[in-house]
């Protein structure tokens, strides 16, 4: 049995309903956020090493960046 597309292989098209100019006064493109907000609203693509658990690795990220919260997406087991 085959033919089930992985989510990263699905192509989506944009259907336009209406057009409008965005007001530059409010908000900004994610890449242009002031560095403080950029970090606060940021995600790191971390290469986990074997040994520590995902939870421990996350705790280290918190300590290195001296931030109060961090969470990981999907546990990777510790061993091997």
């Amino acid at each position, binding site marked *: *049995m*085959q*033919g*089930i*597309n*992985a*989510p*990263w*292989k*699905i192509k*989506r*098209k*944009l*259907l*336009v*309903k*209406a*057009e*409008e100019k*965005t*007001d530059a006064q*409010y*908000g*900004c*493109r*994610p*890449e242009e*956020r002031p*560095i403080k907000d*950029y*970090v*606060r*609203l*940021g*995600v*790191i*693509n*971390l*290469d*986990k*090493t*074997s040994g520590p658990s*995902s939870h421990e*690795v996350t705790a280290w*990220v918190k300590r290195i*960046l001296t*931030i*109060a*919260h*961090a*969470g*990981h*997406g*999907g*546990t*990777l*087991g*510790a*061993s*091997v």
Partner: protein
Amino acid sequence: MTGVLPVALEESTKVVQALLLSGKEYICAMRLHHSMPEEKVETVLNEFQGKIYQRPPVRSSVKRRLRVRTIYYLDFLEMREKHVLFRVGCESGTYIRKLCFDIGEVLGCGAHMQELRRTRAGPFTESEGLVTLYDLLYYVSECQETGNKESLREIIYPMEKALELLPKIFIRDSAVAAVCHGAYVTAPGVLSIETGTKKKDGVVIFTQKGEAVAFARALASSERILNMDHGFVAKTVRVLMDRNVYPKMWSMSSST
């Protein structure tokens, strides 16, 4: 086990719920308990593509009842003696340790997982912007020396990156604050919508500047939404944006 582990910082921890449910890809080294011909191994690996039944292993953090999981692809890479290397793309919640055990059962020789590296978690891949804890430490200490934190941009992604694979709805500036306060997304507020959304599907609401506003549940298909001129389009589930970024545009009653 090593590899891709997206870590969300501070406010962006809200997006991990999307990553937890997203598909994963792994490179796995499996060890057979007896020698097997290569063709047989390849055939059996092929059989494990599609929907499979899986009972979570003894050491797992979920209830051990039979579950259905989708294997998007399972590619044989190489084999030397009893060692087999394969690449697998799978739904979240698939245990690769158990997959190896089950492959061993079908082969009849028994097998176990020897080593595992995650090469993808949702939109995050091994080949794009992967950093180690050492890299992170290096960048942070450099920032402390120079007092300039700008270089952190090189190793941190905006949280929007984590939402890349989900269908999006773009809304007007004037609708942003209302959604930030938990309001439904209404048809007049919608500017564009990505294809492939069905009723009840999870979607992400975006501003025109590409900022994530909220997780929502679609109340109609993308094609229906395109032709709606009034009414609710999506129900806001989780607000991601700060409430004060865009101005409130809704009318307040004059009585105090």
